[in-house]
């Protein structure tokens, strides 16, 4: 009885699935899904390597400082960095007076209890990067976590910054309706191919204090490295803590295995 009941229940689910499968297959076979421009022309991030890659990688502080320079002089006009405090910049090699000077270049909104007004004051090291009032359309995302919030974060940012191009003729031929609308810019590394941000980097936009030539490629790489850091400033510490712990665990596990062999030595199992 129980067996018959279970077979009936089983048939209920399997027949329902077979029904879904059959109709789904029919639709799929008769009306194949139309390819879309995104599907055909979206590209995965370029291969690019950063000093912080891999289990042994550590941040290149010189590069992070260059990246910060690019952020401050280019990106900061539209993109905030709300999870990062100025004091954090000491971790990429700036000393205390330098951090104070950087902080003072930013205006921080402060609520004044006495007057009930929000006034802006010069930043101090304990302040966080201030919100950015963006007057244009859409709201540019906060960049603190951008490299963690995108697949293959660092290479994605780098590819996006260096990936602007004219829409391929091939695309327009097959998908005339996917023509980039006015006010948007074509970039195959962006998920839906068109984004509101124009190409932000131009040759020699920034004068690096360490004399590195500021090519678009260099700036894109540096700012991507900086944004990998802002997403996880503790990454170096994480990896440096990991190795001794893994080493110790390996040692302890070998001891544990030897002890296990010992205890079971006279016991066949």
């Amino acid at each position, binding site marked *: 009885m129980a067996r018959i009941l279970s077979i009936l229940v089983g048939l209920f689910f399997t027949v329902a699935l077979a029904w879904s499968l059959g109709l789904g297959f029919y639709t799929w076979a008769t009306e194949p899904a139309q390819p879309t421009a995104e599907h055909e022309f979206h590209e995965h991030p370029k291969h690019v390597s950063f000093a912080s890659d891999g289990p042994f990688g550590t941040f290149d502080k010189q590069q992070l400082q260059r990246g910060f320079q690019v952020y401050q002089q280019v990106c900061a006009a539209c993109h905030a960095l709300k999870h990062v405090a100025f*004091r954090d910049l000491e971790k990429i090699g700036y000393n205390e007076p330098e951090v104070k000077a950087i902080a003072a270049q930013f205006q921080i909104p402060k609520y004044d209890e006495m007057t009930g007004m929000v006034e802006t004051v010069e930043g101090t090291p*304990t302040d966080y990067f201030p919100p950015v009032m963006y007057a244009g359309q859409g709201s540019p995302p906060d960049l603190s976590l951008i490299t963690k919030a995108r697949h293959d974060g660092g290479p994605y940012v780098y590819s996006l910054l260096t990936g602007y191009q004219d829409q391929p003729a091939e695309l327009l031929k097959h998908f005339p309706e996917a023509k980039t609308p006015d006010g948007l810019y074509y970039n195959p590394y962006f998920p839906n191919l068109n984004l509101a941000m124009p190409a932000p980097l131009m040759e020699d936009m920034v004068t690096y204090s360490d004399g590195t030539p500021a090519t678009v490629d260099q700036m894109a790489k540096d700012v991507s490295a900086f944004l990998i850091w802002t997403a996880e400033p503790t990454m170096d510490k994480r990896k440096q803590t990991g190795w001794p712990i893994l080493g110790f665990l390996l040692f302890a596990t070998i001891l544990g295995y030897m002890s296990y062999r010992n205890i079971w030595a006279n016991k066949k199992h």
Partner: protein
Amino acid sequence: MAEEDGVRRRDFINVAAVSAAGVAGIGVVIPLVSQMSASADVLAASTTEVDISSVQTGQAIKAIFRKQPVFIRNLTQREIDAANAVDAASLRDPQTLEERTKEGKTNWLITMGVCTHLGCVPLGAGEGEPRGEFGGYFCPCHGSHYDTAARIRKGPAPLNLQVPDYEFTSDTVVTIG
């Protein structure tokens, strides 16, 4: 003989394995304990700037330093004289007003607003609040009386109100911490 050595070696391995587990246990405890101590943002936010230009003689204001009140009092001449009239050696926590203020700024008494007994905020800094039997501050929780130099004179508190590290960055601005 060889048999005995074998046994000892085996015991040693077991002891070593258990010890390694113990070391691992201690290693796990370290981050679990230290995560509770002050975080980086709390430690970093430990200076406060106060504008004292509007504090008239005889008035006091409260500021916030490390999430706790600081009393900034502009002493009157009478209060300074009253504080100096006391023999410091006779006090529970012997200190003179000079030791508790900056040179040339003896009228600026800057102390933590935290009673040294159990941490209540003493009265006396606000307008119209009772100032205790010695004309300084009075802690209502357990009745500690502080004098015009914020020294403990009567009641259970063991120490004078603490003077934080501070400096005058200009004539009208004090940086505490």
